[in-house]
């Protein structure tokens, strides 16, 4: 009886293994032998949260934003203070795009000084407001040395662009060009010295002519 049972079992094993031979190309499911905990629960339950690895991002500091203050010489209207804001995007180490927005107020012409009864421009028209869209090129990048132990990165740059000048309550198409020096006090703080000329056509003083309005400004910007 016992030998008969064992022979039946043996035959079953042989047949089953033979069947499995036909499936040898397929991936056999991983056999999991899980011992059912009988009576005693397992003491240690592994609950280790999966660690999330985040690759830190590199911060790009290509934008520069700040303000400037200086003197603007409005042709025929004297030299007056000017203040404005500027924002730049540095595309390559050489080239940057910059936008300016500034305001000044014109003084009086010499004609108005000599003959106080004459007004060339009304009081509200004396505001000189402009915006500019510029392309800049760092012509002379370098370092400036202060004493023996300090060096500041700097660049002499040239800018060229177009924009709008609103003067005498009229908007005029204006071209501008200039040069400036950027001195980086730290990696993110820069000091600027700029000279720029705003050229536009006007007939304000009688005949149509191109007027040059040159500004010299001091600026402070932050890179972010």
């Amino acid at each position, binding site marked *: 009886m016992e030998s008969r049972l064992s022979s039946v079992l043996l035959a079953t094993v042989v047949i089953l293994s033979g069947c499995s031979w036909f499936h040898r190309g397929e991936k056999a499911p991983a056999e999991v032998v899980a011992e059912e905990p009988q009576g005693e629960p397992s003491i240690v339950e592994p609950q280790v949260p999966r660690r999330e690895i985040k690759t*830190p991002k590199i*911060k790009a500091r290509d934008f520069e934003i700040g303000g400037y203050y200086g003197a603007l010489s409005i042709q025929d209207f004297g030299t007056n203070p000017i203040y404005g804001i500027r924002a730049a995007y540095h*595309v390559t180490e050489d080239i940057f795009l910059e936008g300016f927005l500034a305001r000044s107020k014109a003084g009086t012409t010499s004609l108005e000084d000599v003959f106080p009864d004459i007004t060339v421009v009304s009081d509200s028209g004396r505001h000189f407001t402009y915006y500019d869209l510029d392309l800049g090129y760092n012509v002379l990048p370098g370092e400036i040395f202060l004493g023996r132990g300090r060096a500041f990165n700097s660049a002499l740059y040239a800018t060229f662009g177009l924009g709008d000048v609103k003067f005498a309550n009229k908007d005029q198409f204006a071209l501008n060009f200039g040069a400036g020096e950027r001195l980086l006090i730290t990696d993110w703080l820069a000091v600027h010295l700029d000279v720029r000329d705003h050229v536009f056509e006007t007939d304000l003083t009688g005949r149509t002519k191109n007027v040059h309005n040159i500004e010299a400004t001091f600026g402070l910007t932050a890179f972010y």
Partner: protein
Amino acid sequence: MRRLLALLLLLQALYVGTAQAKRPLLQLVVTQPYIEMRSGPGRGYPVTYVVGRDEVVTVLFSRTDWYKIRASGGQEGWTRRADLAETQMISGEAAPIPPYPDFTTHRWEVGAGYGVFNHENLATAWGDFALTNSLDAELVVQQAFGTIDNRYIATFGLRHTFLPDFKWISPTAGIGFGYQYVQDREPPAPLQKSNQLAYISLGLRGFITRRFMWRADWRKYEVFTNQNQNEEPDEWKVGLAVFF
């Protein structure tokens, strides 16, 4: 002046606020024989330190194509994108230095330029988002400086680029709608201060170098007025753009 100072102070406060929020910094292992660190973000700055193979550097931030890094000894300097791209993360994976944006598949574009609108000077600026390689959605803001009036025009449209794989020059065509605001310069005042408008455009675009491209466009507008006749001005413009 006071307003300007207030703005500067605000900027300063913003900066300090962001700077103090501690971010984990990326650390990279040098796999090439050495990488050079320069004193400034430019090809002309002198090399001040050299980091050898298997040394770990910390990447602080980037400016244009240059990355400011710190060596394990505390020395800081600027290294170029191409050098840093060859390094590895500590886990052995390639350094996550983003590749240069490809012109054909670029997503964003920002540009400005000069044009002529109805024989008048035009200053133009645009932002552009690529929906596919050949279809873009564009937002254009411009100002036309006329002798009797001054116009602000804002338009939104779609533009198709034929042959987007042609890098140096490929034709484009577009269609869109917008709005114009007319500011009087000389009397008589305009009959309508603001109008809706629509346009069709034909143009060309091309790659220049690195992240720069050029664009030239012709547009025909249909300005909807409350008169018997619509205005039909046309416009030419050329511009320079940066793509991302």
